[in-house]
């Protein structure tokens, strides 16, 4: 057995271009072939041509999607930041202006999240929940995280579980989204389901707090004391459950370490829930 046979028990890597274009490699062989592609310009050209051929097979399969799909996707898009969005782009996301600078061509290749993460710790969660709406997808995402040596197992499990719960909220038939942002870029994004009494709440622009203080999320109801929905971990969404149908808004306050039974300061951000079906 030659070294090549040993490395490529399936034979010459070039011969895998067609199976690759058809997605007919298992995960391991796919990864290996992609590493080979990085060093083989001919293969890249060939794979590109064969992939275009494979896509032709999809011409014959189009079918009208269920109408609800559109609402769900658009709701999720409203609260799902884009990969690699920088603060400047974040502003564009809100105001819808023209791009200020073209994206660097390298970006297309810089697909490994761990390369991006150290530069943008605030957006670590972008790679996670809202866009991954099933437990299976959560596993895929979790495996991405698994390559990062410093990722604790516990965190992984928690994130995976959260991704699955968020998927449930998104999949609710009445899931709707809303969001806001003030002049300082602080705000909340929410996907909520009244029937499930649950919401995924994503903070933005809240920044880090010093001295062990925390951002605490409150549910506001008419003629009632605010009820704590939990503490935000920096930049990660919070899954709020047991939301009352008459809830009118969400509010975030800065509280001492560990949070407070009742707010001790004025809200830094507040978001009305009427547009997602609550408070009626």
């Amino acid at each position, binding site marked *: 057995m030659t070294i090549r046979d040993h490395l490529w028990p399936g034979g010459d890597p070039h011969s895998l271009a067609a199976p690759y274009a058809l997605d007919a490699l298992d995960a391991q062989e796919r990864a290996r072939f992609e590493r080979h592609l990085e060093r083989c310009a001919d293969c890249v050209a060939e794979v590109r041509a064969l992939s275009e051929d494979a896509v032709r097979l999809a011409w014959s399969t189009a079918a009208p999607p269920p109408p609800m799909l559109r609402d*769900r996707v658009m709701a999720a898009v409203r609260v799902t930041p884009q990969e690699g*969005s920088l603060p400047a782009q974040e502003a564009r996301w809100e105001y819808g202006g023209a791009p200020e600078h073209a994206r660097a061509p390298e970006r297309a290749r810089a697909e490994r999240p761990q390369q991006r993460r150290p530069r943008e710790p605030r957006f670590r969660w972008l790679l996670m929940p809202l866009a991954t709406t099933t437990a299976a997808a959560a596993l895929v995402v979790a495996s991405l995280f698994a390559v990062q040596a410093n990722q604790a197992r516990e965190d992984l499990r928690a994130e995976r579980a959260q991704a699955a719960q968020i998927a449930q909220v998104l999949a609710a038939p009445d899931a709707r989204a809303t969001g806001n942002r003030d002049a300082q870029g602080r705000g909340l994004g929410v996907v909520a389901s009244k029937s499930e009494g649950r919401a995924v709440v994503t903070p933005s622009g809240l920044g880090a707090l010093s001295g062990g203080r925390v951002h605490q999320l409150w549910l506001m109801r008419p003629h009632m004391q605010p009820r704590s929905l939990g503490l935000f971990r920096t930049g990660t969404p919070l899954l709020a459950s047991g939301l009352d149908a008459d809830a009118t808004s969400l509010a975030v306050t800065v509280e001492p370490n560990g949070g407070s039974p009742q707010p001790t300061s004025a809200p830094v951000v507040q978001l009305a829930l009427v547009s997602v079906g609550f408070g009626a």
Partner: protein
Amino acid sequence: MRTAGEGRRVEADELLVLVATGDQKAFEDLYGMVSGAVFGLVRRVVRDVAQSEEVSQEVLIEVWRTAGRFDPSRGSALSWILTLAHRRAVDRVRSARAATERDLRVGQREHSPAFDHVVEEVEAGLERQWVRRCLDRLTDLQRQSVTLAYYDGYTYREVAERLSLPLGTVKTRMRDGLTRLRECLGGAA
């Protein structure tokens, strides 16, 4: 057909570039243009309608999230999106298969009733007929190798096992099949 196809593709390319800048309106337009192709392809591979909806949702959100990776010089937006959709559909069907050890026999698809005939027939357009005609022009082994992989999500190793063929033969049939499809469908691209 060429004109219509070209128009849709160019427009989708431009929209996807706008989407990469965070333009939600552009995404909505793009959704209208590609969601049927995405859902139909995913359903063809995944088969279960509820799961197909889930996967399609993931794919379309991923299009929004990762639109910045699209490079128009490397291919069309429709190809980029459908490639992503196919990958996710195949991943789903394989994990489902691994979970249930479900074992579908070769050719069962042809004999089992189609999941949703009505929709299929409504959608049966020129492109669909064209692809079918071109698939008919392949040799049996080419067609089975290509369709078991693309429409049923089998790996080439599984295809080889199912067709009792050596791995090398299956890889060659896949390549030849795709190349012949290109020749047959090329005029329609």
